[in-house]
C-alpha cells in the first residue's frame, strides 16, 4: 500500500492504461509538457511522447469531436476538458453525437472514450472555475457518469472507464485533488466497476447519499455526529449514471431516512432523482421526508471568499442536516 492524493491515484490510472493499451491516448489543453493545469498528466508526455499525450488547440468541442472520430476508428481516447465549466461548447458533441451513436446506428458504431473534467468549487474559482455539471449529463441516455471520492476510486474508476465500451464522463472533485488522501495497493490491479455505489460507512439511523468532495465532508460529519449518538450510514454514489437503485433502496429500507448532499444547484439537481427513486419505490419504509442539502439556486459560485463559503455545503452544514433529520 502507498498513501497518495486523489490526483496521484488518477495519474497512476492514466499511466497504467497508457502503458497497457497503445490505443489509449490523452488529448486536451496543456496536457503535454505542462502536465495539465492541475498537473494531472505530469510526466506522461515525457514517458509516452507527443503522439499519446496530445496538446490540443484551445477548442473544447473539437477535443471531444476528435475523440469521437478516433474512437470510431478503434482508438481509446481520453479527452481532458480543463475545467468542467468549459465543457458547454462540447455539449452538442457529447449529447448529440457520443451519447447517441450506439443507439442511432443500431449498435454498428460505438464510442469508447473517457471525458475527464475537474468540477466543483471551494478553490476561489468564481463562476467559471467552480461549476458542477453532473446533472446535465446524468440526464442523457447513452452516457455513463462517474465521480471518484478517494485516490483508490480515482484510479480504479478511471481504469474501468478507459475499458468501458461507452462514452464515460469522469468528473474529478478538484478541491479534493490534493486534500483527499488514501491508500492504494501497490501489488494488484485496481479496477473499480462502473455501476455500483458503495456503503462507505455503515449505520442504522439514517442514510446520507453523496459523491466526490461532498462525500469526503459527509464522512467527516458522520464521525462528528457519531459522538453524539447518531449512527449515520454513508453511501458514496460514485456512478451517477447508471444509478445503483439496489444499493440506494437497500440502505433506506434499513435506515428509514435519507439525506442527499451535492454542491450543484438544488432544482432538478441529481438529488431530485434519488429522492424520486426513494419516494416511488421505498415510500412505505420512509420515516421522514427525504431531505436535500445542496448549493443554492444561483447561477454559479461567487469568487469572494465569504460568498463562496456561503455557497458550499461543508462538514458543519452536513452535520447540522444529519442532526435535524435524526431528530425528525
Amino acid at each position, binding site marked *: 500500500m502507498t498513501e497518495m492524493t486523489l490526483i496521484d491515484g488518477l495519474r497512476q490510472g492514466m499511466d497504467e492504461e497508457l502503458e497497457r493499451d497503445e490505443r489509449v*491516448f490523452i488529448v486536451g489543453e496543456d496536457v503535454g509538457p505542462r502536465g495539465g493545469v492541475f498537473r494531472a498528466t505530469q510526466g506522461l508526455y515525457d514517458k509516452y511522447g507527443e*503522439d499519446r499525450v496530445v496538446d*490540443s*488547440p484551445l*477548442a473544447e*468541442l*473539437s477535443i*471531444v*469531436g*476528435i*475523440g*469521437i*472520430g*478516433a*474512437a*470510431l*476508428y*478503434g*482508438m481509446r*481516447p481520453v479527452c481532458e476538458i480543463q475545467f468542467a465549466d468549459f465543457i458547454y*461548447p462540447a455539449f*452538442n*458533441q457529447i449529447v*448529440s*453525437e457520443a451519447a*447517441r*451513436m*450506439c*443507439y*442511432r*446506428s*443500431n*449498435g*454498428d*458504431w*460505438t464510442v*469508447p472514450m473517457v471525458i475527464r473534467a475537474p468540477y466543483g468549487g471551494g478553490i476561489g474559482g468564481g463562476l467559471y472555475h467552480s461549476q458542477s455539471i453532473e446533472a446535465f449529463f446524468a440526464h442523457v*441516455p*447513452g452516457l*455513463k457518469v462517474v465521480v471518484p471520492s478517494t485516490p483508490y476510486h480515482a484510479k480504479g474508476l478511471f481504469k474501468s472507464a478507459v475499458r468501458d*465500451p*461507452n462514452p464515460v464522463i469522469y468528473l474529478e472533485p478538484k478541491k479534493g485533488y490534493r486534500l483527499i488522501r488514501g491508500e492504494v495497493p501497490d501489488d494488484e490491479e485496481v479496477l473499480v466497476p462502473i455501476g455500483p455505489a458503495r456503503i462507505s460507512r455503515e449505520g442504522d439511523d439514517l442514510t446520507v447519499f453523496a459523491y466526490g468532495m461532498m462525500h469526503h465532508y459527509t464522512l467527516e460529519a458522520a464521525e462528528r455526529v457519531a459522538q453524539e449518538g447518531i449512527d449515520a450510514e454513508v453511501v458514496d454514489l460514485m456512478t451517477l449514471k447508471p444509478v445503483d437503485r439496489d444499493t440506494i433502496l437497500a440502505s433506506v429500507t434499513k435506515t428509514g431516512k435519507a439525506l442527499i448532499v451535492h454542491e450543484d444547484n438544488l432544482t432538478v439537481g441529481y438529488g431530485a432523482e434519488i429522492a424520486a427513486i426513494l419516494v416511488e419505490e421505498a415510500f412505505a419504509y420512509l420515516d421522514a421526508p427525504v431531505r436535500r442539502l445542496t448549493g443554492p439556486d444561483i447561477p454559479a459560485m461567487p469568487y469572494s471568499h465569504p460568498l463562496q463559503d456561503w455557497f458550499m455545503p461543508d462538514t458543519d452544514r452536513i452535520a447540522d442536516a444529519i442532526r435535524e433529520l435524526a431528530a425528525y
Partner: protein
Amino acid sequence: MEGQEELQVDLSTENLLEMYWLMVLSRRLDERTWILHRQGKIAFHISAIGHEAAQVGAVMALRRGEDWIAPYYRDLAMMITLGFTPKEFMLGVMGKKGEPNSGGRQMPSHWSLKRMNVISHSSPVGTQASHAAGIGFAIKMRGDDTVVLTSIGEGSTSQGEWYEAVNWAAIHQLPVIFMVENNRYAISVRQEKQMAVDKVADKALGLGLPGVTVDGLDAMAVHGAMSEAAERARSGGGPTIVETMVNRMTPHSSDDDDRSYRPREELEAQKAQDPVHLQRDKLLAAGILTEEAEIELQERAKRKVEQAVEFATEAPYPDISEASYPVYAEDRVDD
C-alpha cells in the same frame, strides 16, 4: 473514331460508364422517393438531385471500402456509389426493420454503413467534420494507408464546428478531404448571407491548407480534383478543401416549398444544366455510350428501383421492443 469528341480524362471506359450508371440509379431512386412522399406513403425525403456528379465523381476517386466517409444528409448518390443498395435505401425511407443506417431509428438519409466505413451522422449540421478529423488523427497515429472524406453543404461551413475540424486537420496534416457541396442555398438562405467570401475554398487561406473549387456538375472534373486531394492526403501532404459547385434542383426537403425564396427562372436554367444529362451527352458524343445502351440502362435503373420499392413495401416494421436498445454498447445484439 471519327466525329467523336475524345474525353480528356484519366478514367477507363468502364469507369466512365459506371459513373454514369450510378448517377442514373441515384436519380431514378431519388425521383421515385419524391413520388412516394407525394403519395403519402413515406414521411420524409431529402434529395440529392443536382448533386449526383459531384458525389459519384468524389467517391470513385477513393478506395471504396478501405477509405472512410463522414457524409451528410444530401449524399444519396455518394452512398449508392459506395454500394448502398436501392433496397436498403427504401427500407430506410419506409422505416422498416433492419434498415442498415439505423434500424429505423433515424430519419431517412441519415447515413451509416459500417461495411463501407461510413460513420453515422446526426441532424445538427457540421458535427461530422470533427469526427473526420479524429479519424484522420487515428489514421496518422496508426500509420495506415487510408484517407477520410467528409462532406458538407456550404451553409454548414458557417458552423464553428467545421472551422475547428479543418484547423485540427491542418495543424496535424491529417489525411482528410473536406468536400463542400455548394448549391448556394442553406434551406432558403443564400450564400451571400452565409459568408463574405465568394468561394468556400477561400476559407482555406485562413486555415493553412489548400482549397480548390471545381465544377460539381462535371463528374470527371470532380474525380480529378478529388484524386489529387486523395493522393496528397495519402502521401502525408495533409488535408484539402474541395468545393464542388452544384445545383440543388429541388426544395431543401419534402417539407420545404422553395417558391417563396427562389426564382423559377433560376430553377429552369439549372434544369438545362442537369449533371446527369451532361454526363450522358458527353459519353454519347465520345461514343462510349450508345442510344441503345442508354435505353437499356434507364430500364435497368427503373427496374431496380421498382424492385426496391416492392421489397421495402413488403418488408416488416421493426418490433416495438427494438426501440429500447441499444442505448449502451452492452445492449447490442449480435446478428
